[in-house]
């Protein structure tokens, strides 16, 4: 008498054997299915990467956006520091940096130390011509306008020489509107593409299993339990999903390597590719995990249709 444990192990082993046999003996169909899941995963992975990379790029650009407030020559340092303190109290302000006249001069000299003409002019003037300033970074673009209004109409308006916000206003606003569009639009686009990927995969697997419906019927007549019939299809789903995910990952890895090694100018500098490198493990899990889940679930669902006992 066989023990129950032996029986279960035997069945488990056979389900795997049959699953693998089906794949290897139907190489054409298996490769076709893997290719379709690969395409679907490219859609999913592509949107994931594009969103992440764009958000990374925008975050880098946003970080470069700031507003400089230049003070009049006769503005006292303690007044400037008071302004700094007040601005820092705004919740939407991320960072305020005070640049004194001396610091400004030092930076200027350091930057232009090789420019003989500028250096000579500076000596000729005799005094420090550079103004003190505050460099403000905000969380949102809309905050810059509020800050500018506050400064221009507040008690310190007399010591302020100029604010360079208005000069950059158009560019900054445009950047932030693009950023918002990418965030919301990107999410909607990913959802739609993921849905398309899932539907295409489901249909491919459904058709592959449809061609097996008579074999499924035969197995039922021989007395195979539903799990004994379903099992090999699930194993096939697991294996094809795994390979499709792995190939999709390697594909993206290859493309990323190729593009980033060429630098691609400003995109490389702005960290467009950093997103992929930082999230490489997550991406690997998404691709392989996604492949396995979509393909296995589709197999289960498709085969279930033929396992139902239909009677009049």
């Amino acid at each position: 008498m066989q023990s129950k444990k032996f029986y279960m192990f035997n069945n488990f082993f056979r389900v795997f054997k049959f699953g693998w046999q089906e794949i290897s003996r139907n190489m054409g169909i298996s490769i076709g299915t893997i290719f379709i899941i690969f395409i679907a995963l490219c859609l999913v992975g592509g949107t994931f990467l594009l969103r992440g990379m764009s958000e990374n790029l925008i975050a880098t650009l946003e970080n470069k956006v700031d507003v400089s407030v230049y003070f009049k020559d006769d503005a006292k340092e303690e007044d400037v520091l008071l302004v700094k303190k007040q601005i820092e109290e705004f919740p939407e302000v991320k960072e305020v940096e005070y640049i004194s006249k001396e610091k400004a001069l030092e930076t200027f000299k350091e930057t232009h130390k090789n420019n003989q003409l500028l250096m000579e002019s500076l000596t000729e003037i005799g005094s420090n011509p550079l103004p003190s300033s505050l460099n403000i970074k905000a969380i949102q673009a809309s905050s810059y306008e509020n800050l500018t209004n506050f400064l221009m109409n507040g008690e310190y308006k007399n010591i302020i020489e100029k604010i360079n916000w208005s000069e950059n206003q158009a560019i900054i606003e445009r950047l932030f509107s693009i950023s918002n569009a990418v965030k919301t639009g990107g999410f909607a686009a990913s959802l739609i593409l993921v849905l398309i990927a899932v539907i295409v995969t489901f249909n491919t697997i459904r058709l592959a299993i449809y061609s097996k419906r008579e074999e499924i019927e035969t197995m039922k007549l021989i007395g195979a339990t539903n799990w004994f019939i379903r099992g090999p299809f699930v194993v096939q789903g697991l294996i094809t999903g795994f390979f499709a995910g792995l190939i999709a990952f390697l594909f993206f890895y290859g493309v990323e390597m190729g593009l980033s090694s060429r630098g691609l100018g400003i995109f490389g500098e702005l960290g467009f590719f950093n997103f992929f490198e930082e999230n490489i493990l997550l991406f690997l899990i998404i691709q392989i995990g996604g492949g396995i889940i979509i393909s296995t679930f589709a197999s289960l669902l498709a085969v279930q249709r033929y396992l139902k006992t239909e009677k009049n």
Partner: protein
Amino acid sequence: MIYFNNVTKVFSNNCVALSDISFGVSDGEFVSIAGKSGAGKSTLIRLLLNEERPTQGEIIFEDINVNKMSPSYLPYYRRKIGVVYQDYKLLPQKTVFENVAFALEVLGKSESEIKRVVPQALDLVGILDKASNFPKELSGGEQQRTALARAIVIQPRVLVADEPTGNLDMITTKEIVKLFLKINQLGTAVILTTHNREIVNSIQKRLIVLDKGKIIRDEEKGRYYL
């Protein structure tokens, strides 16, 4: 062993396939069920295998009421019956050996038992030399022998054959019928449906004749005439 008690089957389009059918099959018996196409032979087999449910009446196999069993018991019930069809119903991606082995794998038999028993079954039906061929590489007769080996390898109480020679030439048909008789001699009950007069008359065993869904004759050593 098997009892059909007043079984009637009416399909949803009001087509009466079987009408008030009653008969029994004993252990080790050989029963031919003959009739023209559409007489209800295949429906009768489908009812026995619980592929369909009767509209009225009941079917008893040993002590099981076939139509009242739970769906989860169905696979275990079907393992008691060996079935052979006109279209063989082999699994195309499996070799002859694997097709026959599958019936034992379903039962959870060990690999060593499968390696021992499958060649015996293939030898009995005379296709041991084709063990590693795929179904598409076989003739119709060889495919039917494979199906027969698959049906008997599980040592069923009854072997059911639904028009098993329908696609075969006369010489092959005679060979297959001889195999059925041999299997019956070894103790397995056989239920064979056919519309072939020559087969029935050569068998010289119990004959049930169906016409338009009704039993018109049930005779020991009957002859089939139209």
